[in-house]
């Protein structure tokens, strides 16, 4: 979070100050990239760039605080994800180019990899394997750093629905991880 200097940084960025924009970008890019690595892993970086272009184009009209700005960026990112998923669904099935799969080799058992190696990649995979809505809510909450009400705005759903999805997704993750923990104990014991 940028904190108390956010209004000044935002105003400067709206005024064309590239350093101020860089401050905004550096603060939010890791979070949005992580969210996209769960939501659209093969094209995460491209979609993040597209989301920023969308934000830059509307920057002059943005009014709001730092939390609103974060939500705005994630709304843009999510729109890109939705577009990408539609495109993928429309296209006939094709093998992904090898280049898109570099660095996205999932561990055999992501739950064990999270518990034993604290693997970030495995953590993303575990979230991504949840039912779509639950995965999206958890990705926005955990990786995007958004609160329930903010996730609700980004997804266009009621906060109660977001809370329920988070609850179910968390329980499912807990179940999966606890099973891996028990299995690990059995192996080592």
């Amino acid at each position, binding site marked *: 979070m940028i904190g108390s200097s956010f209004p000044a940084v935002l105003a400067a960025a709206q005024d064309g100050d590239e350093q101020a924009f860089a401050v905004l970008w550096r603060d939010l*890019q890791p979070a949005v990239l992580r969210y996209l690595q769960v939501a659209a892993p093969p094209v995460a970086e491209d979609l993040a760039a597209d989301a920023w272009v969308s934000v830059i184009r509307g920057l002059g009209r943005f009014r709001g605080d730092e939390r609103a700005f974060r939500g705005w960026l994630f709304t843009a990112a999510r729109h890109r994800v939705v577009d990408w998923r539609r495109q993928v669904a429309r296209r006939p099935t094709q093998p992904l180019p090898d280049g898109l799969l570099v660095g996205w080799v999932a561990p055999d058992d992501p739950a064990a990899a999270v518990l034993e190696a604290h693997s970030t990649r495995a953590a993303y995979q575990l979230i991504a394997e949840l039912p779509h809505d639950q995965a999206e809510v958890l990705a926005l909450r955990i990786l995007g750093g958004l609160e329930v009400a903010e996730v609700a705005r980004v997804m266009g759903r009621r906060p109660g629905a977001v809370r329920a999805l988070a609850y179910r997704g968390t329980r499912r993750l807990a179940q999966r991880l606890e099973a891996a923990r028990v299995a690990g104990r059995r192996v080592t014991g």
Partner: protein
Amino acid sequence: MSDHGVLPSDMDPPDALRCTPPGVDFGTIDRLLAGRLEEADAPPGYEGVAELVAAATPPVDPDELAGEQAAIDRFVAIARAHSPTPTPRGAGTPGRPVGVKAAALIVVAVLSIGGAAAAATGRLHRPPPSGAGRTASATTDGRAARPPTAPPSTAAAPAITASPPRRTTPPPRPGLAVALAHFGEVLTTAQRQGTVDPAAADLLHLARDVGRAVQAGNGEDAHKQLADLERKVDELIQQGKIRSVAAGPVREAVAQFRAAVHRFRLSAQATGSRGSGQPDAAAGGPEDPPAPGRGDPPDDRGSGQDR
């Protein structure tokens, strides 16, 4: 993400059925997902989730910031395309009287500089009951009351090239608060990387004093304090408290800060009244009506229209 409501059968070990965690309240789930519960503090059955949250949110990796220059290039290209008549930054309108709103915004700028500097050094003080916090939040809250503006159209946006030509026109220059915030960021980043001694945090206090002096119209004081700041930077570099790898970025940030101070003084002189330059917080314009509490949609679609 899976599109179905159940996990694929080959992903769940049979143990999963025997490891159903007990129910917990929404508040606990919130704390878990926000990373506010350590593994040791997590309720039984949810320790793994706490571990997962920690694994999923490591410190920022430099690779995650690899696209910064490309992003800035896009920003510059779009900003230029949308600004056919460039206006020098920091130049106040000569002879324009300073209104009450402008004066209030200047106060906000001064206070936000202090806040940024304090935040950057980790020495953020609790705001006085009727001072900075209230002024700043009044501005924010006031903006939050503005009716939503129309979402920007993307139809007329220019095509973005991967590497637009740069520096064909003078680049935008940072204002005082931004230059100070940047200086603070450079210092704190270097401190985290261990290339700057914690003693260098005093530099930020010195810079903040410079900002206050120049905004109060005490140009001479600001000039002397700025010289002290630069001398102190040189000393710390010579003493090895700012290591050579960090010396360049720190010096560059100080130079940018000096330039911002200089511009601020010039604009203040141009308006003929002290502190009447355009501080960063006033960039929205004194006449700017308040804004909504949340951002406009980033394009012409509302959120969540996909389902």
